[in-house]
């Protein structure tokens, strides 16, 4: 089964050129489009959905998986396996392609490890096999091209090189996994607010929590209030709401990427600390 022509969700939830909105909506039902109301109360576990008999369900699950996992996979190939960018791109593409064609993710046993660990182990095995078979892939050689922004992640990895090594090779995988989850949750929040009266809440959140790239650049509540023409109390209220919703969406994403409650709690503890899920 090839991934040609299929849609992969971008973290920011933006449209991917060349894909139809109808197709996109069918593949990735938006939170506000569910019958549960504004936000879905639960998201079916991807780990469960990739075992589904229905190929469409399985493909959708894999796409959700790719949204969060493509960055960790690429970073792991670059940093742990020290592959060149071109090879890392090809192997990232092929890893997810083979996840569909070879169904190797179906072998996951929640009793043995966390799903995140399992994906990393599968990746290591995949790379080892590729190297054993001397399967150096030619650029574009028969691989389905997923719309993944390798140039951007390459820049980020280069910028973060100062921190490389001290956390261990596997840390890159975990770090990008966390980034992927947050990016997906922020995207969910933006989509849920877009075109609704909640848009101003997201604007406050974006201005205060997302826009500053350094802590020193973070504006005060008063500055945000003046900029957006709101009372200060409104700013703190909107911010509190946005953070609360982001936390809920993040945990919902996380739940969809874990197999059991115990695994979810462990991952939530690592992500947000102290088992607050």
């Amino acid at each position, binding site marked *: 089964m090839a991934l040609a022509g299929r849609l992969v969700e971008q973290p920011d939830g933006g449209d991917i050129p060349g894909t139809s909105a109808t197709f996109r909506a069918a593949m990735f039902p938006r939170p506000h489009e569910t019958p549960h109301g504004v936000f879905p109360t639960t998201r079916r576990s991807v780990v469960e959905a990739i075992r589904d008999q229905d190929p469409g369900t399985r493909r959708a699950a894999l796409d959700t998986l790719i949204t969060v996992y493509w960055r960790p996979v690429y970073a792991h190939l670059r940093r742990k396996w020290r592959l060149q960018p071109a090879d890392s791109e090809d192997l990232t593409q092929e890893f997810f392609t083979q996840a569909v064609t070879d169904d190797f993710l179906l072998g996951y046993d929640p009793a043995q490890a966390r799903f995140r660990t399992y994906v990393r182990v599968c990746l290591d095995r995949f790379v080892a096999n590729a190297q054993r078979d001397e399967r150096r892939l030619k650029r574009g050689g028969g691989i389905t091209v997923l719309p993944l922004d390798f140039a951007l992640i390459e820049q*980020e990895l280069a910028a973060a090189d100062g921190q490389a090594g001290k956390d261990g090779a596997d840390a890159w995988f975990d770090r990008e996994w966390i980034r992927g989850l*947050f990016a997906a949750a922020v*995207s969910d929040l933006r989509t849920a607010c877009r075109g609704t009266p909640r848009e101003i809440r997201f604007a406050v959140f974006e201005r205060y*929590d*997302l826009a*500053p790239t350094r802590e020193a650049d973070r504006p005060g509540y008063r500055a945000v209030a003046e900029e957006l023409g709101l009372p200060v109390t409104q700013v*703190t209220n909107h911010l509190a709401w946005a953070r*609360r919703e*982001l936390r809920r969406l993040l945990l919902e994403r996380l739940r969809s990427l874990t197999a059991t409650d115990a695994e979810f709690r462990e991952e939530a503890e690592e992500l947000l600390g102290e*088992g607050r899920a």
Partner: protein
Amino acid sequence: MTLPDDTVSHLRRVLQAPELPGDRYEIHEAIGHGGMGTVYRAHDRALARDVALKVLRADVAGREAAVRLEREARILAQLEHPGIVPVHDVGVLADGRVYYVMKLVRGERLHDFAQDSGRADVLRVLLRVCETVGFAHSHGVVHRDLKPSNIMVGSFGEVLVLDWGIARVRGSIETSGSTGGEPVATPGEDDTAPGVILGTPGFMAPEQAQGISGQIDGRTDVYALGAILRAITGPASQGGPVPRPLEAIWNRALSPDPAGRYGSAAELAADITRFLDAVPVTAYRESFGERAGRIFRKYQTAIILVLTYLAVRLLFLVLRGL
């Protein structure tokens, strides 16, 4: 779109942080995790100072835990003593969890302090702990969870007893309040049902470990102080042989029978002071040789000077006789 590292860090921090009503406090990083609560560094915008904010952990949140944290805040607020962290504020988060705000203390825990300090310094710290605990006892409060990690030695030499969450209140302390609506404890009553065990193994007196709540009094804390004394001045922490009087002090404090222990933290402190002053301690009957050795060590310089003088004098007389 992607999120820079700093943004991810910021989001993780703000999502972990408790959601406080109003904008008086700005939450920063978590600086401590306990069995019941998490302590955050926070900035009080109204008074422009850093404070510590203790919040009930979400995973232990429940009516009983909320009551305990609120009780702790009120106990601390009413026990005004240099060895007890002052509480500034108490309230309820948007999600219903109780929090309180207290002075931010910077320093190290007693077990860390003991690793880098001499036995005498560690004993002087313990004397301050005994004073604080004795003060609490005089107000009808038994701490019930004394251990090295609950004692902070501040950067300026202050010694603070922390974590009063499972303290038992008797007598005059008023612990009922209004933040959560219901009274949290009635003065003169014990909040712990018989058979319920609260505390830390290794530092809990037998009556506490067995859940005999009727037997818990100041001597229960004396037992814990004895366990702390052993932990921070024993061979594991300080190395080398332990002076027998010191060992006798902790053995007496650790008597399984409350009647065999020191009657109060002040009595324990008095014996530790005697040990530091190199005078006989009540917990130990020393032999003649030990007494002589102790006196020698105490007056070592004077004795050596006198003996040297006598030796020189004797030598002079001998030389003159030749």
